């Protein structure tokens, strides 16, 4: 990756700046706001910029909005990254096995992929969380369950072309175990186009997590931006800032992921074009 070229695009710079800020917020949350962000911090429905001890004001129950914003960044980033990592891992394994094994295995795995793509992903996540019960781990699994199909398809398409190459043939000739060929020779070479998709997957995961917690299906013991927006909805007329502030954080986070991802893909595409 050519960092000079990456940072020549203003969009990529903006994207990485936003992501850096979010990561700093997430890491600093327990240091700056060591107390429980769900605890009462002051009088309820304090407007922003009134009291400098609570710069963004408080919600209906008197909880600190700024503390919620920082702790919410932790949840959003953690769930987004974990769910994206899980979907890419599962997707590339399924795709590699399907593409490399071919035949009946391929047919069965691809029909399963079709089935997962036929069911609206959000409904699937909703159903799983509602049946198993909301916790951070379940939310991660539920999001991954609806997002692994994209990586699986791309990995399979890559593997189909890679498995015909000479180095795979030579690995066969020297008597390498097929499982070893699939995962040590083929899979690493099939990964780049799958990873190019990761920013879209992370962004979708953050949005899905927010929508789930907005509907009351997030981990009840954690602050989430979606949950804060839902909280603010009850007082939408008198205190719209309670829904607007965490929403802006969400939009910035997702936009940051998109812009950074696009910057990386474009700069590596430009490098390939030059070579």
């Amino acid at each position, binding site marked *: 990756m050519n960092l000079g070229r990456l940072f020549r695009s203003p*969009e990529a710079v903006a994207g990485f700046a936003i992501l850096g800020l979010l990561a700093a917020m997430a890491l600093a949350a327990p240091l700056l706001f060591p107390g429980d962000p769900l605890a009462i911090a002051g009088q309820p429905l304090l407007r922003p910029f009134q009291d400098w001890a609570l710069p963004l004001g408080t919600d209906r129950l008197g909880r600190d909005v700024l503390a919620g914003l920082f702790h919410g960044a932790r949840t959003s980033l953690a769930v987004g990254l974990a769910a994206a990592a899980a979907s890419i891992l599962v997707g590339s394994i399924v795709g590699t096995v399907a593409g490399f094994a071919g035949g009946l295995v391929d047919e069965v795995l691809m*029909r*399963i992929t*079709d*089935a997962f*793509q*036929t*069911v*609206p*992903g*959000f*409904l*699937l996540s*909703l*159903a*799983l969380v*509602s*049946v*198993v019960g909301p916790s951070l781990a379940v939310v991660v699994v539920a999001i991954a369950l609806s997002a692994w199909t994209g990586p699986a398809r791309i990995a399979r398409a890559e593997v189909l072309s890679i498995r015909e190459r000479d180095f795979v043939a030579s690995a066969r000739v020297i008597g390498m175990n097929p499982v070893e060929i699939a995962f040590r020779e083929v899979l690493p070479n099939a990964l780049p186009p799958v990873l190019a998709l990761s920013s879209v997957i992370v*962004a979708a995961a953050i*949005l899905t997590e*927010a*929508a789930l917690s*907005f*509907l*009351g*299906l997030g981990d009840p013991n954690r602050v989430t931006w*979606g949950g804060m*927006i839902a909280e603010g*909805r009850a007082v*939408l*007329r008198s205190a*719209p800032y309670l*829904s*607007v502030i965490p*929403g802006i954080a*969400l*939009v910035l986070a*997702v*936009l940051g992921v*998109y*812009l950074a991802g*696009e910057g990386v893909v474009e700069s590596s595409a430009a490098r390939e074009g030059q070579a």
Partner: protein
Amino acid sequence: MNRTVRLLKRRLVGSIPVLLIVVIGSFLLLEAAPGDAVDAYVASVGGDAGMIEALRQSWGLDASPMTRLVAYLWALLHLDLGHSVAFSRPVLDVVLERLPNTLFLMGAATALSFALGTALGIIAGARPGSARDRFLSIGSLALYAVPGFWLALVLTIVFSVELRWLPLSGMETIASGKTGLARALDIAWHMVLPVTSLGLIYFALYLRMMRAGMAEVWRMDFTLAARARGIPRRRIVMSHVARNALLPLVTMLGLQSAQMLGGSVVIESVFSVPGLGRLAQEAVGSRDTPLLIGIILVSAVLVIVINLLVDIAYAALDPRVGASEASA
């Protein structure tokens, strides 16, 4: 027409195993949920321990999982999706009652996002790399980053709470006694915000696809030939470039349908539109797993049907599609 029929037949046969996998998945989810169909039935209708035992036996719930899966499949074949706890009615009845509202919302939102995305995509793709193109691309990306439920809330704050131009929620004015055209206008009035929220989020996808497609066509020889012949740029953009880039967007219509169904859950919840999505949220709220699974099954069938229709439309628009199926 023969070509279309052949394509249709192949797609229909192909969707059977997919649907079967969806059903098995639903069955597993139902099994994982606490309580079974009898608990659900008794909770809503009432009954004593003896009746519960008898029902379990007569519904075959004491049999092995394999037998139960077969029974479940058999019931589904007879369009029996089980019993809803929350509504004390068959699941299918409740779902079918709500389906038209969701179809209406989805259809209008799809039309909005397709029209807006294509139009702005043509403006962006007319001169790839221009300031206008950059602005539209970044702007649409920013909209795509907005969570649907939040956009819905912000639009509500602006247009219903502050400006009081549009109704806050619901599908129509309750007990207004309106009929005919007046009622249709009332519903349309209520649906402006839900349709706009849902449509605005997804139009970026069409814009970006249109733009990318046009950038590709600009590099082709026939575009160069058209320019060499001195055809006005405006005409090249419309009848050469945009026209050729438009076709792949039709496929996107089908692929988008599953995502839009998911998106309608939150939008319908925010605006209290009595559709499938709001029903799903109600099912979650009242722990009504049979109803939730029923909604998933109906949505899966809906997605398959929409994709089939899109395939047919595509085959009608592009004579190359399916032409190779004769030899395959």
